[in-house]
């Protein structure tokens, strides 16, 4: 199959999935509560997929993802608050446009912080980088907590009371297509020339440098891209929750997203999706025994690391085209099967 054919098969599959969800919703099988859960899973997918770029593909341990999400969330909420002050309402058609602007702003703000943090921090390796990103995440949170001055007639961050009273909402349809767009962009980046450079840094930084890959540039590029999409995930969370406060974006939240990445497989976007869905559903069942939830998560993490450190999918990708080929018996030997492509 040609490349465009494969892409259209995949796209067709996605559209079918979307129609399936829409039908289920119209039938009332997916009620408001379930679709809310689906939105949260979607946000987690975006957040975890972006972290996967930094940790799984670039190979840099980043433990401050919640910090970038916080920046995104507050940036998006800030834009929508300004919009509200200027007299817009949620029922206006233009609000969707404003939300897109706000999300892009959220991503750009997070990416700027990603670059600012990345330039010094990425000189460090492994566990030190993890600690520094953790430290930055905490500093961002503490800063949001404390930067509670008045601007444009409202409290800038709202401090410990949280930030509310801004426009925006998040429906299942919106998050569905947003997830698809984000994953497609990430996938294209990873499969591109730049993506191969990023992968080479993960495999062996010194060797990559020796063959002429500008490692510093690509580390910062990967880190900033990761921060960009984390910011978008944060913005979505702000729209969905209609109220944000710094207590949400703690180290624990970073770890929760990190667990999704590790569970799904570091270096597998589809693995991230699978893990986010599994954990999202697990969350719902474990809600009744909420205090056991994190016990089970952490035990899962330890067991996973000991027995299957590469995660559910490892660095493989699930692909519809690959599946179809397998079913039809034409076991692909061509290069374009994305089942083995990414590794």
């Amino acid at each position: 199959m040609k490349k465009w054919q494969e892409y259209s098969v995949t796209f067709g599959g996605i559209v079918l999935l979307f129609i399936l969800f829409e039908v289920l919703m119209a039938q009332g099988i997916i009620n408001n509560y379930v679709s809310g859960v689906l939105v949260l899973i979607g946000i987690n997918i975006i957040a975890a997929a972006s972290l996967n770029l930094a940790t799984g593909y670039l190979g840099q341990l980043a433990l401050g993802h919640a910090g970038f999400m916080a920046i995104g969330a507050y940036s998006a909420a800030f834009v929508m608050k300004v919009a509200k002050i200027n007299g817009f309402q949620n029922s206006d058609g233009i609000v969707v446009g404003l939300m897109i602007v706000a999300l892009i702003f959220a991503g750009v703000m997070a990416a700027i912080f990603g670059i600012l943090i990345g330039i010094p921090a990425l000189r460090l390796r492994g566990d030190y980088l993890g600690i520094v990103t953790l430290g930055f995440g905490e500093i961002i949170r503490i800063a949001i907590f404390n930067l509670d001055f008045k601007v444009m007639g409202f409290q800038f961050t709202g401090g410990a009371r949280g930030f509310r009273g801004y426009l925006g909402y998040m429906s299942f349809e919106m998050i569905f297509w947003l997830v698809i767009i984000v994953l497609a962009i990430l996938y294209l980046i990873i499969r591109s020339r730049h993506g191969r450079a990023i992968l080479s840094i993960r495999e062996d930084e010194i060797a990559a440098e020796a063959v002429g890959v500008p490692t510093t540039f690509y580390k910062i590029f990967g880190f900033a891209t990761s921060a960009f999409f984390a910011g978008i995930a944060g913005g979505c969370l702000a729209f969905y929750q209609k109220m944000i406060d710094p207590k949400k974006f703690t180290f624990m939240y970073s770890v929760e997203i990190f667990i999704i990445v590790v569970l799904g497989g570091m270096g597998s976007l589809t693995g991230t999706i699978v893990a986010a869905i599994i954990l999202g559903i697990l969350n719902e069942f474990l809600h009744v025994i909420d205090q056991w939830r994190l016990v089970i998560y952490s035990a899962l993490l330890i067991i996973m690391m000991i027995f299957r450190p590469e995660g559910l999918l490892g660095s493989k990708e699930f692909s519809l085209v690959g599946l179809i080929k397998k079913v039809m018996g034409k076991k692909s030997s061509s290069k374009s099967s994305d089942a083995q492509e990414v590794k």
Partner: protein
Amino acid sequence: MNQFIEQIIYGIQLGSIYALIALGYTMVYGIVKLINFAHGDILMMGAYFGLLSVTLLDIPFGLAIVLSMAVCAVIGMLIDIIAYKPLRNAPRISALITAIGVSLFLENIYRVMFGAETRKMVIPTSLTQTIAIGNIKISYVTLLTVFLTIICMVALQLVVKKTKVGKAMRAVSEDQQAARLMGVNVNLTISMTFALGSALAALGGVLYSVTYYQVEPYMGMMPGLKAFVAAVLGGIGIIPGAMFGGYALGLIENLAKAYVSSSWSNAIAFGILILILLFKPAGLFGKNVREKV
């Protein structure tokens, strides 16, 4: 002036606790090159055991400290054997993720067992008194903390420098393979390191809870992270470095709290860590090692 001196004294008290915890971080890192995230939670368990042995077993405070240290030493060894030993040859990132997992597991299993609410630490009344030197008041808790910390540090130095176990520890951290070839039981030595570090953390935990009067499942997180900052400050893997880093961080934090801003004090601690890692990644006492292919 008096206030300044009092802040310095409190800083030394807090620094002692950080130093005790930082020692465990540094020893474990020196020997297995692992940031033991769960170390802060050993502190939490130490505080719980201290509290429980005072309230349930009704034993004297001093004995409670010893008991808590002993139990935590065993738990530290168990953690090493169950969670870290299978990953000895795995990539370092796997071991680090496991450490995060162990930390979360301990915190949340304690939350399930003892509830999320903060418990009041029971403190012997004799410790709550203060003595006055001039205009400066020093509580017995402060004296006890500093005194016990110094004893432990001296004891640790003696163990590491003078005993056979200490020699084995130094050998393993120098070169694991060579140590094995010389007949050192590497796994036992690593377990002993975990036990020693955990015992010190347990002492730190009891002293921390006595200082702040409270015990709760997540109490180990912040002091754990800060002790890690202290260990990095002095150069991770270097025992005198951890002691120095602990005291330095305790003093800086207390002075920042008193004279700069209390709500930013955690951010200041992390800011220091970041600055040190950027300008002197090996820490103040460490030597820079160039990476070879």
